[in-house]
């Protein structure tokens, strides 16, 4: 299992999509850093809010990476090749999930760290570092950690859908359709169901304060646990499907 896991980690980080998206994020951060530097006096104390604001991009990228980790493998036929090396499908699936979700977690933290460094340079150069103390650091770290955890959970959603659909596009299409269309319809037509919507729970988990998202009647940890439970359920379903279906 260790060898399989090591191979999956290497496979994940070798993917072109991972490299391209990572590069795009870093370029975007660099450009934003330059723009901020030139146009305003940035106050580093607002960094946790920047992290919250930019989480949508990270979560979208995470969904895409999770979906592509298995969808592209199905599309290209690599699943067949891997199963001729390790026929225990449960292990193959577990290794892929662990490698993808862990890698997304680390990448999400890394991107947020790069963003922090870029803004720290801005603040040190033209802005202000007032209010940057231990409690600020603690808050920033907590937000970054929650966004990274949520990135892993969203990668899990994408992975599960792509695994069942055997295609990355399925996961992206279903994800977009559900999050943007279905959840908005539910929010409008059945507001009492709001506590079960992924976007609202994700919002609460990222914001990290019940007072800002009072409708859910759920704690921040509760929102995280609910989202994790949904991801686990989807991944278990995907694993069951993977074990049961023919690989043709």
């Amino acid at each position, binding site marked *: 299992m260790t*060898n*399989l896991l*090591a*191979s999956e980690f*290497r*496979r994940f980080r*070798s993917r*072109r999509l991972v490299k391209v998206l990572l590069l795009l994020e870093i370029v975007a951060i660099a450009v934003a850093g330059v723009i901020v530097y030139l146009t305003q006096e940035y106050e580093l104390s607002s960094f946790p809010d920047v992290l919250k604001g930019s989480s949508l991009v990270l979560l979208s990228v995470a969904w895409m990476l999770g979906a592509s980790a298995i969808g592209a493998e199905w599309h*290209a*036929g*690599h699943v*067949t*090749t*891997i*199963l*001729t*090396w*390790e*026929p*225990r499908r449960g292990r193959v699936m577990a290794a892929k999930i662990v490698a993808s979700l862990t890698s997304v977690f680390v990448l999400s933290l890394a991107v947020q760290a790069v963003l922090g460094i870029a803004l720290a340079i801005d603040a040190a150069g033209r802005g202000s570092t007032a209010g940057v103390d231990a409690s600020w650091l603690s808050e920033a770290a907590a937000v970054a950690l929650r966004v990274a955890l949520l990135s892993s959970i969203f990668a899990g959603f994408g992975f599960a859908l792509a695994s069942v659909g055997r295609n990355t596009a399925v996961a992206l299409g279903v994800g977009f359709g559900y999050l943007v269309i279905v959840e908005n319809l539910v929010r409008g037509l059945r507001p009492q169901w709001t506590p079960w919507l992924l976007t609202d729970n994700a919002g609460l988990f990222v914001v990290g304060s019940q007072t800002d998202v009072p409708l859910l009647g759920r704690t921040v940890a509760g929102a995280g646990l609910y989202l994790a439970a949904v991801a686990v359920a989807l991944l278990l379903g995907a694993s069951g499907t993977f074990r049961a279906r*023919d*690989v*043709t």
Partner: protein
Amino acid sequence: MDAVIELEGLRKEYRRLRGSRTVAVDGLDLSVPSGGVFGFLGPNGAGKTTTIRCLLGLVRPTGGRCRLLGHEPADLHRVIGRIGSIVESPTMYPRFTGRRNLELLARIDGIGRSRVREVLEQVSLADRADDLVKTYSLGMKQRLGIAAALLKDPELLILDEPANGLDPAGIVEVRELMRRLGRDGRTVFVSSHILSEVQQTAERVAILARGRTVATGPVHEVLTAGHAAGLVVRLDDVAGGLRALAESGIAARSDDGVIRVDLPPADAARVTRTLADRGLYLSELRPDEADLETVFLELTGDAPKETG
């Protein structure tokens, strides 16, 4: 002789969306002995790849049993380290180098880089190993697939159409490689619809049609299956030869400049004596053996027939 592959009444049906069913493999029985090259022949759609997928646990049989190195598909993990395989076209990451592709697979089994180098040399890809796979020709990709199958130094190789896309030189290389592996005591189970390839490399064959085995056994036995054993005689005076044989009560006929004699090869001396007694000297005498292509076409169009 131990069987490395055993199939008993293997059946695989695929359900279609509208509820109809397609039978890909229909009660297939097969036993592949250990060692040597075994040809698994059949036209497209005969069920070769589905059979291989069943063996490797990729698809679940609808009925029957299959065992690989004595293990059912559910226990395949116990023996998978002794099996190398290619199923249809080998799939590799096009944006990785050939070497990196192999290293990724090797990592799964804890195989070292020296073995990767060895197999790359074995399939003559060492000088292109560090090029991206997307720059490879179809034949090179096929060779890379064979290299991947060889990584585990397997005792059983299952190769699904390994000559697909190869140029003539590549075909010869693969043929030699299969022969060499077979001679080394490994079992090479090779599916193909290129009959001449199998005829030149395999010691035993099974012919598949519509999901069933229609002939199986040593190549020479399959070649004579359904054919009256006979002899081919070549001599200058065909008419005289036919008269001489007829006078001796030997049934023979002229066919495209040669005489086909309805006697088993064991009675060849009777033919030479009969002709020599009449002053007719032959320039060629050989068993009247159909080539595999003829047998294949006959068998795949006919009812099942067992030999050997």
